[in-house]
């Protein structure tokens, strides 16, 4: 097989997915945890369509955050520490296929984490949504890969493996709780709301809530603009941490 950009991207993505599927310590928490939480709080404890729908929107963001932060954050830190990244830089592999493969693999994992949650919501939680809304919700959930992935990359480029695991966990949990992904942010006291507003997880959740017809005080367009701004900031941060590699 001769060298083509698509060929490199395909084999790089294949290698990413193979590696992830062979790492149960990554696979289990990222795929099983979100649906387990949703089953507990969204289906078994809520016993109602409205709460199940609300939590479907927010737990979807939570499910996407796992592979984005851990696949990238911890993954890149380990690859960097073990010299794998350096060997790739010495090999004739374009940097963009390396990042691109991670992106495709992360989106694939995010979709795999979302599917069981959607199934639980539709078949057990009594969530009823038009097809177009399901599809829009799926796209909104998947788009959360971008800001979280860039944050993950920045962590991976800045810390060693152990440090990256710790930082990614702190970010993961605080984004989940303070972003209102586990409990609705509407119950938060004022000082917590101030923190929520600084987190991309909160704004992503607000967009998803608008899609399922449970909007907050502000328009989805406002939250989308904030997320876009944060994503650009995260991209700059990731680029800067990457350039500091040398």
């Amino acid at each position: 097989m001769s060298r083509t950009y698509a060929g490199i991207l395909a084999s790089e993505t294949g290698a990413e997915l193979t590696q992830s599927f062979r790492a149960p310590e990554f696979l289990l928490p990222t795929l099983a945890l979100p649906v387990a939480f949703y089953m507990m709080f969204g289906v078994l404890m809520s016993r109602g369509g409205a709460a199940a729908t609300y939590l479907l929107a927010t737990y979807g963001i939570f499910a996407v955050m796992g592979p984005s932060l851990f696949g990238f954050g911890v993954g890149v830190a380990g690859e960097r520490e073990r010299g794998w990244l350096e060997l790739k830089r010495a090999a004739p592999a374009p940097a963009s296929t390396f990042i691109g493969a991670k992106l495709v693999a992360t989106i694939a994992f995010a979709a795999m984490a979302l599917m069981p949650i959607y199934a639980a919501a539709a078949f057990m939680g009594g969530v009823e949504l038009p097809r177009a809304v399901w599809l829009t919700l799926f796209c909104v959930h998947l788009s959360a890969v971008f800001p979280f992935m860039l944050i993950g990359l920045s962590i991976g480029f800045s810390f060693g493996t152990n440090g990256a695991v710790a930082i990614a966990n702190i970010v993961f949990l605080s984004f989940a709780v303070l972003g209102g992904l586990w409990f609705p942010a509407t119950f938060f006291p004022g000082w917590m709301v101030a923190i929520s507003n600084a987190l991309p997880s909160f704004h992503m959740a607000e967009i998803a809530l608008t899609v399922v017809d449970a909007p907050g005080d502000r328009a989805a367009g406002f939250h989308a603009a904030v997320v876009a701004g944060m994503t650009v900031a995260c991209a700059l941060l990731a680029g800067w941490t990457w350039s500091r590699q040398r």
Partner: protein
Amino acid sequence: MMSGMDTQTDPRQLPAVIEAHGMSRHFGDTVALDTVDLHVPAGQICTLLGRNGAGKTTFIRCALGLLPPSSGSVQVLGEPAGSMAARLGTGVMLQDTDLGEALTAREQLALFSSYYTSPADIDTVIEDADIADFADTRYKKLSGGQKRRVQFAVALVGRPRLLFLDEPTTGLDTDARRAVWDNVRRLAARGTSIILTTHYLEEADALADRIVVLAQGRVIADDTAAAIRARTGGAIVRCRTSMTPDRAQVLPGVRAADMHGRLLTLSCEHAPTTLRALLDADPDIDDLEVTKPTLEQAFTALSEATTEDAS
């Protein structure tokens, strides 16, 4: 640019594989490379020999574009170091580098072969690198030596014109080391240029057309193994004697004298001159032995000379 490498091509017609001019690299106050000039023509096995910390790995990293030199320049295959054109013609085996832990050797080879324009057949590489026994085992389950051999295979998969091998046989047992040497010779015979670093003199001696000795970031010798050996002078003379080393030191042609018990070791410029004087000075000497200096002795002498210059 040149066409593919075939047996008809005379390597000497090709551009130099490495062309470094006044290349230096500092890490803070530490000088890792000090104005290194190196021209490596195509088709050579060139060994960078030096102790740990001599600057070998820094040189390799600069030549791969992983580390920009602080000053000076380096071109690889006629292209700027680290450029895509240079990387496409290069195969790399680095130190302290692990491959994908959860992938098998065959999967790593498939991944790396997709980077190159005309890669080798994967089964052929597996056979050539002699890794068939564990080609389908996940990398993290392999022993240290097996991992090194998989890394070697990965370096070969792109059928590179230039191969960088940074300490390729560290951690290998004798058999595996000889297998790597055989491979290196075979590749060189097919026209592949090879830059190899090692701190094993035996390895440099066994493989290299040319040995570049690095010490404290500088090139202190650049020659064939035989020529480097010859540099320390004519011969080593050993004998048992009652003579004091101070007295032996002043014999004609003696550069250095060393005494252990009654065993005297002389490093001399011209053995016959020294021997004549030695036999006159002490008619009772015993166990007389004259040898050519080993590469080890030559290397030690070279390194010591540099250390003394620097201090």
